């Protein structure tokens, strides 16, 4: 049966088919759906970990116990897990272990565009690079075999375009499967390698180098036999080395060229590529982001005519970008579809941009409205989540944001270095459990006078509502232990803790000001209100604007709600449009009502 699966759904299916028994992940776009889908298969255990390093450590333990296992994360999540990953290369694995790194060329939903194929090179383990959902499904099983054969961790690298595109996959309906307990643990005897103390690390290093040579030999023969690496011979005027999603663009733009398609971007079958290069007149490399393959070929003395000189280093590749590069190098002469941009109607309007915004009813709104009113004497260190939109108009209430959990440490450092303004860190509930606990401990210990606003919306919201330790519901829908954030904070020794209703503007203002004055270590504001996409959020009667009372002062626009729009009615005194509320969008959260100085906003009376 052929069905359409996203790359992420296909990875989950492939993992299940290949007998993965345990998988762990922290949600992160574009990787999130891998574990969500895997969790639905029978006979397996799938969990949300509190962060990516925990997820990988979970997988390592499962592997050492003998299970086939998988850890999934977005590209920047691998940075969090890298401490374990780099040494896992030395310890090796027992049960096959695949780390799925979902990279985000184009930074659609990320803070950078790092190319995680580089991890494979620096960690000296293989990197698989599928080009569609069917390959993603198939490669998981082969990656697990390689992992076990060579006792190595393996990265399966996806990208946003692969993870979130759907293509046809051949599949059967999964049969029932019982969860199998692991066999009795076999303690290592003799040459222990899973306890990676210095003496063992020194002994292991040359073995790792040899392992890499062995895997490279495998990519030169077995990988071709299994069709993971393959050559598609056509016209020999042009030969292209490519991998991943770039292969799809190459096939369409340069349909007559011969292609060496790599399913493994590290290590490379260099002699096979050298032989391919010798048989074509011109060799080019088409790859997304870094010149990862190109640099390896050049270092091996393989003549590469074009690569990153004609294809962009930054951003996601597209058909248009591959076409532009091929045109520039004279490889094609078809400039592509004619787009009529001239001779357009004279009154072509400017199309207003549509930036993302906090949803109507969002529990972060009143906090950022209040923060914006108090930002004159404060710096705001933000964190990763929906609340990073606090930087956008109309709030513009965020001064720094860099990575998961960094808000607290940055506010701390700013203050301890002599910062004159109040230092406020804003961090979500899931992010707090991910990497907020350690920096809070550090701030308490060092008596840093900072404000930590924990915006607890009872879910991991940005990635699409995943559970976490603060919700007490597990990935597979079971009841876990819910961790009480206030109790944790108190136990750490924080002396100022105030819980605030997320939609109470007055209380928010009072509590924030009190916290900013606190001078005995960190002051914690626990802002509580459920995300509108959770069942805990309750819609209230909708708001409407009384046009008699509205004086078009614009106060309600400063709450940044998509439901508040300009009406057709102009207030003559300032010649500005009065406000209106879109009944299709309003959730009745009342934040706009609370900030209206003329009491013009109230419950809709129909």
């Amino acid at each position, binding site marked *: 049966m052929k069905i359409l699966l996203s790359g992420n759904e296909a990875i989950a299916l492939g993992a299940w088919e290949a007998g993965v028994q345990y998988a762990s992940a922290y949600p992160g776009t574009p990787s999130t759906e891998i574990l969500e889908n895997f969790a639905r298969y029978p006979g397996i255990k799938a969990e949300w970990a509190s962060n990516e390093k925990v997820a990988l450590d979970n997988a390592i333990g499962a592997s050492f116990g003998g299970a086939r296992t998988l850890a999934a994360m977005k590209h920047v999540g691998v940075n969090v897990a890298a401490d374990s990953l780099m040494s896992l290369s030395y310890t090796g694995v027992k049960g096959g272990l695949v780390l799925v790194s979902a990279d985000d060329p184009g930074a659609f939903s990320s803070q950078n565009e790092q190319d995680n194929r580089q991890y494979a090179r620096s960690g000296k383990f293989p990197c698989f690079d599928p080009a569609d959902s069917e390959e993603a499904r198939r490669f998981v099983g082969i990656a697990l075999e390689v992992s076990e054969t060579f006792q190595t961790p393996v990265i399966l690298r996806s990208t946003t375009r692969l993870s979130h*595109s759907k293509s*046809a996959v051949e599949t059967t309906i999964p049969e029932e499967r019982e969860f199998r307990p692991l066999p009795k643990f076999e303690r290592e005897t003799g040459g222990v390698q899973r306890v990676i103390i210095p003496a063992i690390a020194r002994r292991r290093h040359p073995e790792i180098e040899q392992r890499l040579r062995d895997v490279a030999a495998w990519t030169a023969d077995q990988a071709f036999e299994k069709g993971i690496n393959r050559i598609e011979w056509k016209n020999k005027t042009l030969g292209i080395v490519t991998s991943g999603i770039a292969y799809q663009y190459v096939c369409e733009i340069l349909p007559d060229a011969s292609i060496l398609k790599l399913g493994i971007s590290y290590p490379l079958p260099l002699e096979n590529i050298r032989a391919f290069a010798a048989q074509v007149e011109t060799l080019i490399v088409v790859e997304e982001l870094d010149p990862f393959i190109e640099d390896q070929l050049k270092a091996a003395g393989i003549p590469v005519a074009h690569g990153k000189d004609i294809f962009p280093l930054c951003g996601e590749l597209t058909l248009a970008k591959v076409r532009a590069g091929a045109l520039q190098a004279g490889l094609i002469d078809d400039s592509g579809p*004619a787009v009529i941009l001239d001779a357009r109607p004279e009154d072509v309007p400017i199309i207003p941009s549509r930036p993302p915004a906090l*949803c109507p009813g969002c529990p972060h709104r009143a906090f950022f409205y209040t923060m914006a009113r108090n930002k004159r004497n404060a710096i705001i260190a933000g964190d990763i989540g929906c609340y990073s939109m606090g930087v956008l108009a109309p709030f513009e209430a965020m001064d720094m944001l860099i990575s998961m959990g960094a808000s607290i440490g940055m506010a701390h450092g700013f203050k301890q270095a002599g910062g004159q303004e109040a230092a406020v860190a804003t961090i979500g509930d899931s992010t707090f459990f991910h990497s907020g606990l350690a920096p809070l401990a550090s701030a308490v210990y060092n008596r840093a006078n900072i404000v930590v606003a924990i915006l607890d919306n009872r879910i991991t919201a940005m990635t699409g509502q995943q559970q976490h330790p603060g919700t007490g519901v597990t990935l597979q829908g079971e009841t876990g232990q819910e961790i009480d954030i206030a109790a944790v904070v108190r136990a750490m020794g924080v002396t100022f803790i105030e819980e605030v209703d997320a939609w109470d503007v007055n209380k928010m203002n009072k509590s924030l000001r009190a916290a900013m004055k606190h001078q005995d270590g960190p002051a914690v504001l626990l802002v509580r209100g459920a995300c509108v996409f959770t069942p805990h959020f309750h819609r209230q009667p909708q708001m409407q604007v009384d046009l008699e009372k509205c004086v078009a002062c614009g106060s309600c626009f400063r709450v940044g709600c998509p439901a*508040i729009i300009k009406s057709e009615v102009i207030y003559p005194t300032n010649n500005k449009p009065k406000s209106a509320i879109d009944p299709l969008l309003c959730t009745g959260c009342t934040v706009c009502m609370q900030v209206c100085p003329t009491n013009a906003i109230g419950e809709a009376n129909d």
Partner: protein
Amino acid sequence: MIEKLNLLFVGVGGQGVLTASDIAAQVGLDLGLDAKKSEVHGFAQRGGVVESHVRWARHVGSPTCERGTVDILISFELLEAARWVEWLRPSGMVIVNRQKIIPMSASVGDAVYPTEDVLLSVLEYHASKVIVVDALSLAAQAGNPRTVNTIMLATLSTLLDTDPMVWETVILRRVPSKYADVNKVAFALGQRESRR
């Protein structure tokens, strides 16, 4: 019989654009063609622009279309149709839902949401045919405002040389069973309206 088709579904996060494009891609597969679809989830979905590419062919390579090659643009919102209309191939067609969702750049900022007349004139300049659908009121008429995407798909199905039953079957397979009837009604209503 269709050999090759590029569709571009656009709208605003939360309108059901992704579900509609899922269904359209599956229809391609059920018609015996290869099909792919592509979109980006995450940050942009919070009230931002949503675009989803659907391609049918004997063999589909890239999951995304190239600008200037889209056969039919299906827009769930007026402004978004104008934003994406240059992706149409010459003599491509537009199906547009007559719904306005004012972006924050216009409600809070100084940007101006153009009038419907101006937006339609831009669409008509680029497209060989522009079909304006009152999808929201038709969906309400069908019994559930959330059937907007079924109304849009019904309209699309009348522009293509395909069996409407294939569309209806895929839609019913996709929606929860308690909404099957209302979606059946919406599909029939959408088809009838666009044939008028």
